[in-house]
């Protein structure tokens, strides 16, 4: 059940243009069922190296070039996706690299390759054709040499030399559990081809690339989006849902002694999130504190124990995650630090009692009351975002302007609507309309009660429900 798209690398929202007017791409074929049909058309054609797929019109345009071809330019497109054959795009080789169609033209020893259609300085019997892919002076492997792609060199004393292009397996290694792996291996350790992450067959799965943007779920490459032990993929074999990929580790094999140091967090691999101890940032992957109960106070199970809950998060397999004792950790990208609990009926629980590290900057001034009279010059939000000028119209169109309220000077924090939570401002961040300012209350301890005694109130369209539970009960049964 492999998809013909497996041979292509996708660039979403992209079009590829050839700047030479003399060459024209193929015509648009409308009403193609989907991108797979387009791939089926392009795949076997030797002069088709890529195609555009128009998502709205379901159009398909076959292209004889890729982004690595001369005089081409990629640009953003609202409607089109660009699919390019992997053999032309990948910078590493699969197997012996017979299918390699990249543009490396230098040997491992640094010599410039001779053009395949030249017979000088080295004479040879190869004639470039579409079949053998011998193009310009690019490294190729037309004879299936075990050393991978090679070329005749322009040095008369060195007839030919291997180009030393690494296999995709060797080209990128994995740190820790390989969450950052962005290499091009697309087969599992048993040799099965991976299923594309953007397809739901043969296996349905929750890892839609659009939802997990930062996980790099490109094409059908091995990845680790769920904090597994190693990069993996769904396979194109309907009988086997998912399998690990054999990608070497960047770290040398750990000795027992080194392992214990490593586990205790002394070595930080690249790109690891910042370590915290008394609070956690983001999802808490960097939390290394000693909280060891769930939010509700249930003691955590030790990570090196399989009782009462069996699990795969053994400290040895997750050396970078510091799974020490029974401390709350987040080894799998969950919402917050968590643990297996010691209660048999409750497998896992979050440790939300660990406070989040503040992302607020230190207050720069203070205000009285609700801050309606504040006339200071603080012009930053509590997160440190600069305020938008009250007279400006972008990035946000203000409801309060200096015309209606003269105290709205420059981009200073003010409280034109008497907000009980203090002075605020529109922010210069297009994603944050307004926010409270980097200010504190001048005498918070002496504030009168903010609460009012109960008063009669009326509600109209909310808070009503049908309390007849018959249908629900039958459903639940």
């Amino acid at each position, binding site marked *: 059940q492999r998809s013909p798209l497996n041979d292509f690398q996708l660039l979403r929202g992209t079009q590829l243009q050839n700047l030479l007017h003399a060459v024209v791409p193929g015509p648009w074929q409308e009403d193609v069922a989907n991108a797979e049909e387009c791939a089926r058309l392009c795949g076997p054609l030797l002069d088709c190296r890529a195609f555009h797929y128009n998502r709205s019109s379901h159009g398909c345009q076959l292209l004889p070039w890729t982004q690595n071809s001369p005089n081409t330019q990629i640009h953003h497109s609202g409607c089109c996706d660009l699919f390019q054959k992997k053999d032309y795009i990948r910078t590493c080789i699969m197997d012996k690299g017979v299918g390699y169609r990249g543009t490396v033209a230098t040997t491992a020893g640094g010599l410039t390759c001779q053009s395949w259609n030249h017979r000088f300085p080295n004479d040879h019997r190869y004639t470039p054709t579409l079949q053998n892919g011998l193009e310009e002076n690019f490294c190729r492997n037309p004879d299936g040499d075990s050393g991978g792609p090679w070329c005749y060199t322009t040095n008369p004393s060195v007839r030919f030399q291997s180009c030393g292009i690494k296999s995709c397996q060797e080209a990128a290694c994995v740190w820790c559990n390989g969450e950052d792996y962005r290499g091009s291996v697309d087969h599992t350790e048993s040799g099965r081809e991976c299923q594309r992450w953007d397809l739901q067959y043969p296996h349905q799965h929750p890892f839609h690339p659009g939802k997990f943007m930062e996980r790099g779920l490109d094409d059908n490459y091995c990845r680790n989006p769920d904090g597994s032990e190693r990069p993996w993929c769904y396979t194109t074999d309907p009988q086997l849902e998912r399998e690990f990929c054999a990608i070497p580790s960047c770290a040398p094999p750990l000795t027992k002694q080194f392992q214990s140091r490593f586990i205790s967090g002394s070595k930080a691999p690249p790109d690891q999130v910042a370590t915290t101890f008394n609070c956690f940032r983001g999802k808490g992957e960097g939390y290394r504190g000693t909280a060891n109960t769930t939010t509700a106070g249930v003691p955590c199970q030790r990570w090196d124990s399989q009782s009462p809950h069996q699990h795969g998060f053994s400290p040895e397999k997750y050396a970078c995650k510091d799974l020490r004792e029974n401390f709350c950790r987040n080894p799998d990208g969950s919402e917050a630090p968590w643990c297996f609990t010691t209660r048999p009926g409750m497998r896992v629980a979050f440790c939300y009692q660990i406070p989040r590290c503040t992302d607020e900057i230190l207050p720069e001034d203070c205000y009285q009351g609700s801050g309606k009279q504040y006339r200071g010059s603080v012009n930053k939000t509590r997160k440190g975002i600069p305020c938008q000028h009250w007279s400006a119209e972008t990035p946000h169109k203000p409801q309060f302007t200096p015309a209606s309220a003269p105290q709205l000077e420059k981009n200073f924090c003010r409280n034109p609507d008497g*907000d009980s939570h203090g002075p605020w401002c529109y922010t210069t961040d297009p994603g944050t309309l307004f926010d409270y300012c980097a200010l504190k209350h001048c005498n918070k301890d002496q504030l009168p009660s903010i609460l009012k005694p109960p008063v009669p109130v*009326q509600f109209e369209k909310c808070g009503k429900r049908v309390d007849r539970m018959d249908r629900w009960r039958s*459903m639940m049964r």
Partner: protein
Amino acid sequence: VVGGQPGNSPWTVSLRNRKGEHFCGGSLVKEKWVLTARQCFSSCHEPLTGYEVWSGTLFQNPQPGEPDLQRVPIAKMVCGPSSSQLVLLKLARSVTLNQRVALICLPPERYVVPPRTKCEIAGWGEGKGSSGASVLHVASMNVISNQECNVKHRGRVHENEMCTEGLLVPTGACEGDYGGPLACFTHDCWVLQGIIIPNRVCARPRWPAIFMRVSVFVDWIQKVMQLE
């Protein structure tokens, strides 16, 4: 919910992560707005692509194609005032109100719920063996004054928080219920008076439970919904 029963709470929604797993509760305060706890989210600014709000079902894992289920992506998150521990979630589109999905009223600004008012919490969270988490559970609680609450909690309960009575039989919110509502029946309507926040202990016998007091932040909620 510990000590609860399967029940109906049409304003209680389930927050789902990118894998579709329930991780917190929330309350529908407008067709496009859900109020929940800040602690449920990693950042005020991180994109929420793939996160959804599920409403209209009693089941934690509804069957595919359940007709009443409404799944709406979260478009944006707005963090509340620093002392609030609250966030408002803007939905990518409005939910459709019906018998299974309803809005809950917001209280008047700074309204204090009178002690002994009947309230209830709802959620799909842990039941400590007293209930399964597979269907929505609801538990009744009675409000007590902050003064009374502070006797047990030694003055640590602030004005922007409120409490419910600690019963001998453990009753209250637990893992997975955070962000959900404390709804109180006031003037013939259910009003969102409190938000369940992560607490050190779930449903500890005789210990009052603490909630964020929504009425203190109603002006912020109205302002966000109006300006955004």
